[in-house]
């Protein structure tokens, strides 16, 4: 193969490697950020509803207590309401506790994104380092050799980055998870 063609194929291989690697990681970053957004939105919605419901239940309980303190005889309805209120508040608190776990999930997704971004920065650093070693007067054989080395280094870095970023959060909603006893 002519020297020019060899050089061209190495440049093509390098550019396509950078594009594939970059696109793959950026797609994952986008997916993780969208998942984070979904979890945050749902958490805020559910927490807002829970806190409003707790506020409303506590207010209703206080009204009933005030009537009792004022010497009113509790109606059958009041008695039933008072005895149900603890359970009602407890249910809202449980929903709030389930929703608050968004922090655990989103922090794992954000951590994964940060490690991926750091990996991409290192990847670009490798590209820059090798690029700096190529001077205008460098002959084409040496350029071919350097391009081969940088392609290999980037392929290894890409594999390493993918292997250390296993996804541990697949949840897209804040519903109580599965339970399995062995």
């Amino acid at each position, binding site marked *: 193969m002519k020297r020019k063609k060899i050089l061209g194929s190495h440049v093509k291989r390098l550019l396509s490697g950078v594009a594939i690697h970059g696109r793959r990681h950026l797609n994952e970053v986008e997916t993780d950020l969208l998942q984070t957004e979904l979890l945050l939105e749902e958490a805020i919605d559910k927490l807002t509803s829970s806190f409003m419901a707790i506020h409303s239940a506590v207010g209703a309980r206080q009204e009933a207590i005030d009537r009792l303190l004022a010497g009113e005889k509790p109606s059958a309805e009041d008695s039933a309401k008072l005895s149900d209120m603890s359970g009602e508040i407890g249910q809202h*608190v*449980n929903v709030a*506790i*389930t*929703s*608050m*776990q*968004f*922090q*655990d*999930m989103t*922090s*794992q997704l954000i951590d994964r994104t940060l490690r991926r971004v750091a990996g991409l920065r290192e990847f670009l650093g490798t590209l820059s380092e090798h690029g700096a070693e190529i001077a205008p007067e460098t002959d084409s054989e040496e350029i071919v050799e350097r391009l081969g080395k940088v392609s290999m280094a980037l392929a290894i870095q890409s594999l390493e980055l993918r292997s250390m970023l296993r996804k*541990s*959060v*697949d*949840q897209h909603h*804040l*519903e*109580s*998870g*599965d*339970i*399995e*006893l*062995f």
Partner: protein
Amino acid sequence: MAKTILAVDDSSSLRQMVAFSLKAAGYNVVEAVDGQDGLEKAKLQSVDLVLTDQNMPRMDGLALIKTLRTLPNYAKTPILMLTTESSDEMKAKGRAAGANGWLVKPFDPQRLIEVVKKVIG
């Protein structure tokens, strides 16, 4: 006498929520910030159940279970995983390591208490 549960998780908010839920149901709760801390606390005092996360710094949940199972005091103590991990592959690893159950986060306090009651009463 109230039973004691060792709750191991590197997320402080998660630990607080687990502790809040279990204490409300009458259990004593000892908290640990990762597997290593959990192992040290398990050696210091006897616990009736271990509830552990999987992905943690220093020592993960599977390593904690494997190590606990080598200790005579913890050969038969119930150990439940409470983690975001939900794949069958991870559950199989947990089972092989000696876990007695797998709870996928987020947890509902009522369901958590029901499971704990079922396991240790």
